[in-house]
């Protein structure tokens, strides 16, 4: 009897996983960097190209590292959210300008507002590879010790900020 019921059982198991799969995004790749120190970098600042930033600048206060570019359409969608986040002053917002033209980037900020405390420039995308970036925009939450706590691929929404970012910020000490 069991012999003949086995196919049904196997099918049941498959069905269970297929159902689970419906609520997941197969394209989303979780980052292996979460829980690890932010990767090393040494990049010029967008506003003042002669000054450079490194991962040491991330230590001290929790930071949201936002990867963006002026050619990225989805970045426009999340810009309001970033501005609001900057105004909330719960977390420092740092921009990583990915493969962009400096003039276009500055123009975008002057038109749409500037949520970033500082912006580093990754002109050739090498730093973004170190961060495991595969689609712009992406956002990383780095805690006060310089450890990456969270990564989001795609435009941020305010709901995400409240549901994911703020609870994580509460857990991690050191306010800006």
């Amino acid at each position, binding site marked *: 009897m069991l012999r003949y019921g086995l196919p049904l059982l196997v099918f*049941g198991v498959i*069905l269970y996983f297929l159902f689970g799969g419906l609520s*997941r995004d*197969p394209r989303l790749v979780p980052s292996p960097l979460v829980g690890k120190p932010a990767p090393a970098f040494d990049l010029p600042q967008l506003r003042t190209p002669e000054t450079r930033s490194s991962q040491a600048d991330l230590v001290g206060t929790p930071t949201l590292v936002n990867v963006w570019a002026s050619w990225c359409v989805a970045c426009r969608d999340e810009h309001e959210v970033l501005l609001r986040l900057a105004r909330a002053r719960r977390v420092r917002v740092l921009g990583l300008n990915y493969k962009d033209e400096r003039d276009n980037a500055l123009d975008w900020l002057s038109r749409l507002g500037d949520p970033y405390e500082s912006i580093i420039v990754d002109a050739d995308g090498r730093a973004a590879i170190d961060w495991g970036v595969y689609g712009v925009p992406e956002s990383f939450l780095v805690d006060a010790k310089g450890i990456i706590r969270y990564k989001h691929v795609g435009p941020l929404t305010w709901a995400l900020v409240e549901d994911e970012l703020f609870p994580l910020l509460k857990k991690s000490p050191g306010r800006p």
Partner: protein
Amino acid sequence: MIPEIGHLALILALGLALVQCILPLAGAQRGIVGWMATARPAAYGQFLFLCVAFVCLAASFLASDFSVLYVANNSNTALPWPYRIAAVWGAHEGSLLLWSLILTVWMVAVGRFSAGMTLAFRSRVLAVMGGINVAFLLFMILTSNPFVRHFPAPAEGRDLNPLLQDPGLVVHPPMLYMGYVGFSVAFSFALAALIGGHLDAAWARWSRPWTVVAWLFLTLGITLGSWWAYYELGWGGFWFWDPVENASFMPWLVGTALIHSLAVTDKRDAFKAWTCLLAICAFSLSLLGTFLVRSGVLTSVHAFATDPKRGVFILVILAITVGGSLLLYAIRAPRIHDTGQFEPASREGALLLNNIVLMVAAASVLLGTLYPLVLDALDLGKISVGPPYFNTVVLPLLGGLGLVLGIGPIMHWKRQEMRDLARRIGWAPLLALVFAGVVVGWRGGEHFLQAVAGLFVATWVVLTAIQGVRERLVHQHGFAGMARALSRGFVGMTLAHLGLAAGITGVTLTSLYGVERDVPLKRGESAEAGSYQFRLDGLRDVLGPNYQAIEAKVTVSRDDETVAVLKPQKRVYRVQTEAMTEAAIDPGLFRDLFVAMGEPIRDDGFSLRIQYKPGVRLIWLGGLMMVLGGMLAASDRRYRVALRRARDVLPEGVAAV
């Protein structure tokens, strides 16, 4: 007006499908002839209404009626008219309509060519098929209606996906669907037998030709799809182990197993429960494929636009259809008893081994396809299971299949003396090994073992096939006797087996000796692949009906002699602004030369993908041989005779209950 007629036709077809699903089944259970008799007209009616719906959608495409959302999303006034027709099944909604229409084509065929069956059996078969169509029509009408209007109508449509603007698309999906949906016949036969409780050899005999026909369509669909991907996707690969490809390969593997186990059930009255399970599995995997392609649970190059609501709907269909039939199987199968006796060393034993290999291959493909999903669901991280895995796991199994396939057809039913078998096979293994070794040694290069293994299996299949034919003919005198000995069933089987040999040869040669290079070439420069020189001679702009393109002129030469002038294109379609690679190919039975354009480089040039692909055509030739073999087998005299005899004995409508 026309779209509304189409919509109405869908609803009417649904009504008929409901009738067909319920009345004949109830009639068959209670023995009410009048109820059972509704099955056939209901099936014919559904076919008619779905034809109407299909024509309405096609007419909307031809008239560029962009108030129909589906037309607006998949057509354009600049789209050439043959592609407008093909666009009917170019995306999710329309392809479902095609699916449903094809299901009714099979229903009509069952209704038409079911003379030998009892009325009750035919009623149950059609009721099950009607039930399937109820599910799919509901799915279409509730979540994926191709006739939905939107106002105001846009002035211009968003055009058909450029990838699909190709003659390959015109024929590939219909063939594939004929196969997928065709397995619903074997499925319905199995279910009808389980419901009725008569799982006898007659059920298998009726199932066989239907299964072979569905299988040959699926084979044709897969072959065409592989060929299409080869020349259209621009990578020059013939198989990518993409989830959607796997979705078609799994039912093919199980369908192939089914054909063989049906032979045992039919001739030897053995494997009945197993055959029944295979019939359920083959169609279940077709349905699973539908789910995988349309629900968005896996990423794929060919996936349709997805929507979670649709995913849930198909999952429910899947749960009811597959779960229900497997439950029925679990309840009824223990009662099935085989009468055929055989020893492990027998043709039955060889066919059992064939089934094991094919089913393990199918299960492995399923495992690899779903494994990332399972790990993700268990929060164990995301992994990718790609070509390296499937090649490692499935290719050895297919090689093993070839080995069994060699001896299976020349073994005796019931009991095979191994010594007798060895005597008949004679020097074939050694001959095959020497042949493979000599060819590979002469050709040189790496991968010695794999190459020898591949060619050995192929040669082995050919030699044993020859032996099979010889044994058939040796006692026959004269042409008529020979022709009688070589029944279409036998010739078809042999041809299909030789097709596998051709396919294995092609895969072996292409993957082990093919050369694939990505090279940046300036104008006038050349690069070598497989002793052929590819020289970039020029670049020019080309204007198509709905695209712009850059065309390269690549002269291919060997030993300073021009072999071919290839003109690949890099196209940008105006509406969907997607860059498309149109490869240029110089085909040949023994080798293909392939050029596809990459990106422009500095200093007036282009990066090109140049390829030398030995034996790649053998893969599709093998597929076509299998198709032809299937056609011969399905048209074997025994089926035609059975049909004619049944028709003579039982006039229409007086079939015994």
